[in-house]
């Protein structure tokens, strides 16, 4: 029964949703501090290429993931410098990083005598748990068949949720995002917190790109994220900036990505374009509905200072 279409498609939905999950968790932290980051797509691409290259060079999964995270964080640093310190419009800075990240990664990928586009992945990402567990009916492949990085993402979901709602650090982060003026008056360094969580968020996007290149696809091609970074932007809004909901949303997105194949096997013809479109349509509808309904908006709405640079003098 573990070969049934249903179980295989649940498994592939979880795997396909994981890169987006990493990126979305990072983005939640960044945006909770009040910094809007539209550059996720660029950060995932840079993370992907850095990780892939490191994987080819070292054949070490952990070094590759670290390199991917750091690759994303470098773009995060640029975003922080531009939007927090130099007060460049956050939308413009983010879009510029999508262009820079896309250009840089495809340039790197096709440069050299043996470009990375023609290189095979040096890293093996094997299932973590023993075969006896993985062979259990249904729960085996769905719950026990994954690699260590995917299990790590579950831990990170829990850690981010705990941090946001149960720690002083999380309270500070949320305070800065909701009302930077009040947070500043209470003695928090708005700039320091925004820098920190922009970097952490970008690291998450880089790890997402790394997992996509190393584990999900296993090859490098230019623009391999195919909009996953934008999906992360949408899912974070859709989940109301909540880590547990973003886990669910990522897997639903993963299911939509793979549903086309599944339905085809089942003999149902459905245009994959509409499945790809679905997360964006749903986010659009939810955002419009929330704004038309103030009570609801308060519950699912964005951090109040999202997208607005903070400057003491301008208060």
């Amino acid at each position, binding site marked *: 029964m573990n070969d049934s279409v249903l179980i295989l498609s649940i498994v592939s939905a979880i795997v396909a949703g994981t890169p987006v999950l990493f990126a979305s968790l990072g983005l939640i932290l960044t945006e909770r501090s009040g910094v809007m980051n539209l550059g996720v797509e660029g950060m995932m691409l840079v993370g992907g290429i850095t990780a892939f290259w490191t994987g080819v060079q070292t054949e070490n999964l952990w070094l590759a993931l670290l390199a991917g995270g750091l690759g994303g964080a470098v773009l995060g640093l640029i975003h922080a410098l531009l939007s927090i310190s130099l*007060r*460049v419009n956050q939308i413009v800075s983010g879009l510029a990083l999508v*262009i820079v990240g896309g*250009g840089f990664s495809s340039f790197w990928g096709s*440069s050299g005598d043996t*470009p990375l586009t023609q290189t095979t992945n040096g890293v093996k990402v094997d299932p973590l748990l023993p075969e006896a567990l993985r062979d259990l009916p249904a729960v085996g492949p769905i719950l026990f068949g994954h690699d260590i990085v995917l299990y790590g993402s579950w831990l990170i979901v829990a850690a981010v949720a705990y941090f946001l709602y149960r720690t002083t650090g999380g309270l500070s982060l949320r305070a800065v995002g909701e009302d930077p003026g009040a947070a500043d008056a209470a003695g928090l360094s708005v700039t*320091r917190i925004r820098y920190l969580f922009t970097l952490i968020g970008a690291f998450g996007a880089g790890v997402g790109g790394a997992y996509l290149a190393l584990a999900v696809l296993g090859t490098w091609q230019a623009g391999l994220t195919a909009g996953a970074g934008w999906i992360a932007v949408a899912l974070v809004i859709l989940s109301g900036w909540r880590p547990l909901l973003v886990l669910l949303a990522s897997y639903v997105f993963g299911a939509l990505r793979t549903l086309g194949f599944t339905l085809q096997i089942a003999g149902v013809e459905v245009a994959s374009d509409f499945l790809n479109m679905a997360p964006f349509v749903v986010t*659009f509808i939810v955002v419009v509905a929330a704004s038309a309904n103030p009570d609801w908006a308060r519950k699912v709405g964005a951090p109040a200072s999202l997208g607005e640079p*903070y400057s003491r003098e301008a208060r």
Partner: protein
Amino acid sequence: MSGRLSIAPRARAPVAVRLGVPIGSLIAAGLAGAVVILIAGASPTEAYRIMAESSVVGWRSVTRTLVLATPLILTGLAAAVAFRMRVWTIGAEGQLYLGAIAASGLAVALPAGTPKLIMLAAIMLAGAVGGALWAALAAVPKAYFNTNEVITTLMLNFVALYLMNYLIFGSGSFWRDPDATFPQGKIIPESAELPVISYRLHYGFVIAVLVAVVLWWMLRSTTWGFESRTIGDSIAASLYAGMSVKVKFLSVLALSGALAGIAGTIEVSGVLTNLDPRAISAAELGFTGIVVAAVARLNPLGVVPVAILLGAVAASGTNLQTIGVAAEVVFLLQGLIFLFVASGEFFLTHRLVFRSAAPTEQPQDQPSEALA
């Protein structure tokens, strides 16, 4: 170190700074690009020589640059008019696709023998309306519920992209050529093609420049322009002055969408000759337009040279492969130009002050300290 640098705002920078900063930013972007080329194992001077040859040396290269600049002028204007009113639409990408869909659809629907002038006017109008209607999907919620336009316009971009893909790759729609082996759009009749000026340069470039001049005049000298600037400064004050903010949101977003729609029309009519989803989405013309507008400081006349500069960079990639540099470097350079110009911008509105002692220093404004 006993003293430290701090940042202070300034009202108006001296002329030397206002000229020096953008030029310095461009040089810095070029140097950063040179470093990347060097790391990739090629000679930067050789690479830049080849890039200049493919983009600005000789009339033929110049026409290539201008062809690539044309849609960027229009998407740059689309962003500039909205951003001036602090309406942060990032929907030009999707509005451009809808313009291309509407224009290519009408071009193959009308009889091929339609007089050229009527045909061109009709598809331009169709493209503008297509783009404006797509923008209206975000503009109406913005005007009535104050829905965040950044998110709605962003989402609509991807809806438009997959809709366009569906029309060509996912279905046997009216747009798709039923006789072609591989999925592709029906070729538009010759009467729907923009006339050519020289080589592949078409009259779309002239249209784009004229639109820029008209918008510059509108923003400067009409009530509409005055009101849109005022609303950008303060919504409350504008309401008090009796301006109809709702109507302005609708009209500025519709105008922005129409401009992007015309950009899509011109790409179909002047360059692609059919609805080609891959080609029209590859260059991310809508997103790049936002960068163009930002570098031009939202000035419609400034958009033209900035778009030509980025067009030149895009055109310069063609022959780089001959010296072993991947053509993708041009996208990197476009991004670098923007990053450097945007950070340079800061020094036009702020100045660095060196203080020997600063007991009441504000750590908020110290990025280096915040990172430590």
